[in-house]
């Protein structure tokens, strides 16, 4: 069979190697299907779709499971302070209060420490110490929360009860937040354990954000006669601001969802109290504590609605954090990209 090699072309010298092969049409040698690649492509694609589908399915499931509670209590569920499974009274406010207050308080304690740690690790620390210190601060994030809770019960609670709370009551007892009986467990204990748990998260992300600020920014400030602190304050932090905010929100996110360590030290009493010494409860803890023993449908449904609320809060927080962190990276990437472009000329 004559093939493409001596087809219409006129002035071609004898073609050295034709695509065509004996016994196949002219597309022959150029055709091929890579089955391995196709299978790989679709398998990995399926995993990706699973990641998309799972949260959606969870959301749908939670909404369905919460229907009874939603129709029964309506919006009042969010503001009702009574939680009494025996009398079938369900209000989520004490849990919302416990979660939000303990998490915000944890941020208040953790943010200054984390920022200090991040700035030290990224800007001031001698190079030799940078890695080991960073490793240890990340190691803190790897400790399981039940271990934190264990430590909390046996070390932190006695310390709070015998030293910290009496001292706070003595010096700041005029404030309603430091009144009442020093029990150890309660809102303050929960906030403290959360603070310890979120420091590594906030610190390591903030350190990465600070490291992403190009050195040209630092040099610009140093060459103008800025001290190390002025360089950080005027050249580094402004560029890292939104990324650090993102790190803080991710820390908050972790605090909002933390279950085990909180339930071990918060006291698990659904009461709203002004005093940080009093026991409280949280959204995550109440689900973990009561779901197994909940027999009535309305009880399960109410717990499910609390889960739905927690899910929604975490989702919104996470999206916000991502948006903020990407802002810094975009700006830094712009700068480094232009440096590369110009130096490669």
């Amino acid at each position: 069979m004559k093939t493409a090699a001596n087809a219409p072309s006129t002035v071609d010298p004898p073609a050295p190697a034709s695509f065509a092969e004996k016994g196949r049409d002219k597309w022959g040698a150029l055709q091929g299907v890579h089955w391995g690649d196709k299978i790989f492509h679709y398998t990995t694609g399926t995993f990706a779709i699973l990641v998309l589908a799972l949260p959606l399915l969870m959301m749908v499931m939670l909404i369905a499971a919460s229907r009874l509670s939603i129709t029964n209590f309506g919006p009042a569920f969010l503001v009702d302070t009574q939680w009494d499974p025996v009398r079938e009274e369900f209000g989520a406010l004490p849990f919302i209060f416990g979660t939000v207050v303990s998490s915000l308080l944890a941020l208040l304690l953790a943010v200054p420490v984390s920022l200090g740690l991040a700035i030290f690790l990224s800007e001031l620390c001698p190079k030799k110490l940078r890695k080991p210190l960073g490793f240890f601060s990340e190691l803190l994030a790897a400790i399981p929360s039940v271990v934190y809770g264990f430590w909390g019960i046996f070390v932190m609670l006695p310390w709070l009860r015998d030293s910290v709370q009496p001292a706070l009551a003595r010096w700041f007892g005029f404030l309603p937040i430091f009144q009442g009986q020093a029990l150890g467990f309660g809102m303050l204990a929960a906030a403290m354990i959360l603070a310890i748990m979120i420091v590594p998260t906030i610190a390591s992300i903030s350190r990465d954000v600070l490291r992403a600020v190009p050195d040209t920014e630092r040099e610009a400030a140093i060459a103008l006669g800025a001290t190390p602190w002025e360089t950080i304050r005027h050249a580094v932090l402004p560029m890292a601001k939104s990324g650090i905010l993102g790190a803080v929100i991710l820390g908050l996110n972790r605090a909002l969802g933390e279950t085990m360590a909180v339930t071990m030290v918060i006291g698990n009493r659904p009461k709203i109290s002004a005093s940080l010494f009093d026991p409280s409860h949280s959204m995550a803890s109440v689900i973990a504590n009561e779901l197994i023993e909940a027999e009535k449908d309305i009880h399960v449904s109410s717990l499910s609605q609390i889960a739905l609320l927690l899910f929604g809060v975490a989702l919104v927080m996470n999206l916000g954090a991502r948006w903020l962190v990407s802002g810094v990276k975009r700006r830094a990437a712009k700068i480094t990209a232009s440096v590369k472009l110009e130096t490669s000329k």
Partner: protein
Amino acid sequence: MMQSNLPAPSQLPARIVVEDLNAYFGGAHALHHITAQIPDKKLTAIIGPSGCGKSTFLRCLNRMHELVAGARVSGRVVMDDIDIYDKRVDPVRLRRRVGMVFQKPNPFPTMSIRENVLAGLTLNGIRPKDADAIVQHTLERVALWTEVKDKLHNSGTSLSGGQQQRLCIARVLAVQPSVILLDEPCSALDPIATARIEELFAELKNEYTLVMVTHNMQQAARVSDYTAFFYMGDLVELDTTQRIFTNPKVSKTEEYVTGRFG
């Protein structure tokens, strides 16, 4: 333009006297026993192939070199009868007197044009009462005022590369240094922007001592009064630009400026 009637650098009042300067990066000896006099209110270009130590030399003049981990300096650099490496000298204070412009324009991206001009003052905790006048005067000085006077509150990074570099020069001028170090200030700019910056240098050298590292020999020939040729960490020759480019004493210099290596 090359001036033909300049005296040898040692015959002029020196702004910077460098005596037996050595610079190290960890174990690497980057600059060897540099001794030089940099004349006052002139533009001195520093040329040489990549890795010859020209940028390191520049960074020794405002004590930026020692910021690199493991970097070390020995020898003396004397300005106004003071050895800037004396223990009593605070490098932070020194850098307010010895300004520096970098290869890549680096206005602070989070600051407006106006804030960038005042950045050196703000950093040093100075809040001048006549800030508006300083901004206008400094921007006029770098021929940027008419272009930006209506958008002083825009971000500094919204400007073109050449404008950004002039903004960075303005930022340096605002702190009133006596010496300005220029580290390949035009290498990131197009030829038109480069020409405008070079014009600016020609004006600035009436008031300031300029030291410019450049890898562009034509630029050194165009704008500088004196040229120092560095090779492998040694200062081979420092003389009037005209002599370096037409009749250098050392054959290595001639080989370099005629493009036989580098």
